[in-house]
């Protein structure tokens, strides 16, 4: 059985170790609002709901609480489809929050068993974690050899399928553009065109800090700890290290960005947020005031085709940086 989800705090290896197929969905745009959703619904949440609630697809769906709309939209699923809502703590500085995340993983495990999954032995879990760890290492190693778009699409493909599939026609940027970071929530399938547009205007995304991209990859596991306490290592790597805007406080996101900006010589940040996404929207002005590098905010719409306004704003931003 396939287990669909979109949140980076759901560890794929935990699902795979239970013998089920994890798939962090790359959502396609939806062209209408799903029944029962009103004004103010996030375009991504709407599209995700329509992507995963296909009658008869036989898949289970995991929602999390990192986004209020995604949590609530779980109630609009067909009652016949298995649904699990995982609480990912917003706070992170207490041992209680860390323990709660681990307990939620164990509860997710019981849900997976209910779907026919087998509880993994520590060895099986550790082996699965190593396999995913190696796949992520392979992805990270490919960063310089691929174009920014190819790299981000390869990460999204890995999330979606569990497979690392690097393009045969790897095309690293021919001329180095202005190094930029792309930050924000999850990308939809058609949003990757943005990479091309940026490149056309003289920029290059050297850090994909969206929820779909590099930011949401957990760090490499500690191999010794992994053998001693695999579930503890899994929880620590995901909950303890993935920076995100929803966390309270979300200072780690800024620390992580600051380090990445320095390491990769980033000269500007493009922050994309969906209309009605309070979590990322609220960071736009703060990130500007942070004054590390210039910030350009872009709305990411459900039916976004990279229109004249986006193009013009990007162009102006890059002209300023060139």
């Amino acid at each position, binding site marked *: 059985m396939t287990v669909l989800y979109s949140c980076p705090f759901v560890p794929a290896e935990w699902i795979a170790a239970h013998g089920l197929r994890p798939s962090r969905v790359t959502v396609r745009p939806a062209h209408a609002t799903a029944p029962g959703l*009103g004004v103010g619904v996030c375009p991504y949440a709407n599209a995700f709901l329509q992507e995963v609630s296909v009658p008869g697809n036989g898949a289970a769906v995991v929602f999390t609480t990192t986004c209020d709309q995604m949590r*609530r939209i779980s109630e609009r699923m067909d009652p016949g489809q298995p649904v699990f809502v995982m609480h990912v703590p917003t706070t992170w500085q207490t041992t*209680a929050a860390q323990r709660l995340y681990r307990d939620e993983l164990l509860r997710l495990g019981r849900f997976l068993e209910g779907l026919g999954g087998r509880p993994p032995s520590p060895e099986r879990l550790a082996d699965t974690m190593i396999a995913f760890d190696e796949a992520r290492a392979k992805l990270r190693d490919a960063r310089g050899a691929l174009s920014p778009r190819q790299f981000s699409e390869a990460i999204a493909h890995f999330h979606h399928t569990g497979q690392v599939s690097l393009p045969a026609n790897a095309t690293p940027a021919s001329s180095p553009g202005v190094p930029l970071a792309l930050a924000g929530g999850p990308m939809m399938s058609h949003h990757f065109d943005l990479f091309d547009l940026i490149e056309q205007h003289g920029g290059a995304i050297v850090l994909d800090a969206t929820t779909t991209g590099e930011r949401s990859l957990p760090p490499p596991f500690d191999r010794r700890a992994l053998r001693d306490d695999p579930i503890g290592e899994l929880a620590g790597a995901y909950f303890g290290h993935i920076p995100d805007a929803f966390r*309270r*406080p979300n200072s780690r996101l800024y620390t992580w960005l600051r380090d990445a900006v320095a390491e990769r010589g980033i000269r500007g940040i493009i922050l994309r947020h969906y209309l*009605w996404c309070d979590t990322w929207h609220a960071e736009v002005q703060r990130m500007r005031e942070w004054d590390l590098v210039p910030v350009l905010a872009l709305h990411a719409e459900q039916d976004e085709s990279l229109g004249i306004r986006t193009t013009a704003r990007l162009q102006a931003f890059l002209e300023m940086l060139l």
Partner: protein
Amino acid sequence: MNRTPEQISLHEWDRLHDDLVAAGLPQPSYGGPLSRHVPDGDLRLPRLRYDNSPAALRLWNFLLTEEDRLAAARTEGKQLVGTMKDLGTVPVMAYSSPSLVAFYPDGAWWIPCVMELSAGLLEVADSLGIDESFCPVRAMLGAFLTEAHFPIPDLLTCNVGATCDDFSAIAQRLNGLGYPILWWESPHRRAPDPGEASVELPGGFVAPEAQVAFVHDELERVRRALAHIAGRTITDAMLAEGITTANKVRSTLDELRRLAYAAEPCPMPALEMLIAEMLAIHFCSDRDECLAVLDELLAEVRSRVDAGLGALAGGAVRVFWVNPVADLRVMNMLEQAGGRICGTEYLFCHALDPIPEDLPPMEALARMALADPMTGPTADRADRICRDIGLFGSEAVVVSQIPGASHCATEGAVIRDTVGARLGIPVTEIEVPPVADAMAPTIRNRLDALLETARARRETLSATHEPVRTTT
């Protein structure tokens, strides 16, 4: 003085106030004519209709003088605690210490309404990147930065986790501006798994014991922080006493709601009842006076019910209201359209339910916090709404959407579907901005349509001698 209960204008209240004072009406220290608040900027007041009882006058004056009480508390050397988002839990803890006064910075969301946008708070929020796509509670940012509406608290707490993204994001923005915040977490309340130990929460929801234990530990962190600024331990005995007093407020309010929402004709208008319910969240910065204000209001309602008198005409359509309105005037609008409030769920029903007194106090508070309707599925909320509709005999439901609020995009349909399927009563959704004057014709049209539908249903049921179906 014998007065017939009715709704009157601000101007009429001033004349009545003078008459009452001349007749010897005793007034609290914060008493006086309501219109004196208008030069302070409360420009909405002349556009509202008020109940004409001295109890209502005291209620309004109590509400509109909170800032003075906070300033006085600071002068007396008390420590101020801003309790954000939890709507009723941390204030009970704070008031258990004589050195602390809690208030509710989120309450600033009504300032744009009460001051008819003249305070510029939304503009401050705009300038901080928190625009109109956020809930009107963004006004709180402006209130912090201007320091013109409440003193900056000595401790700020904020409930996060399974709450709403608007508030969490706005509080994070505040934190990013340099205001330290103690974050405490509520997990998404879920149904217990088969075989999992569970407990019943105040209000009837059920939650796993493990979730209650988690919230208990979170509240222990809050207790330590409160004790730190109070300069002394807050013992279980102090908390137990605090819970007992909070329950006095809640039981007074409970009786008030039962009388005001069930009696025919309606003995107390919607606006005064909305304010009375709000007091339960944080006691409007003076717990003892809050109880006295509610006691007087209850006495007034009792006497009206005993005399068969109402502030509204009899036969009004009995409406259950979901979510607080950003513009207070809309509550008047419902009554002008021929409706009356018979049941509410203003997103803080957990602040109205009695806190268990037969449990260790922190356990009782944890259960109460987890009963917050925001933390659980909307289906739970809809269940409770159906139950309360049965209690109050409501004939129609208004789901009042809060512009930009993250929970509003999905909850309306869940509530509508549940209420429709179980009770068959009409439901409408309206959206109410902080100053709804431009939207008034649209809102009024929707309310008229709802009330007409409810009246038609009432006539049909009456013709067929069927009782109005209001039980789940």
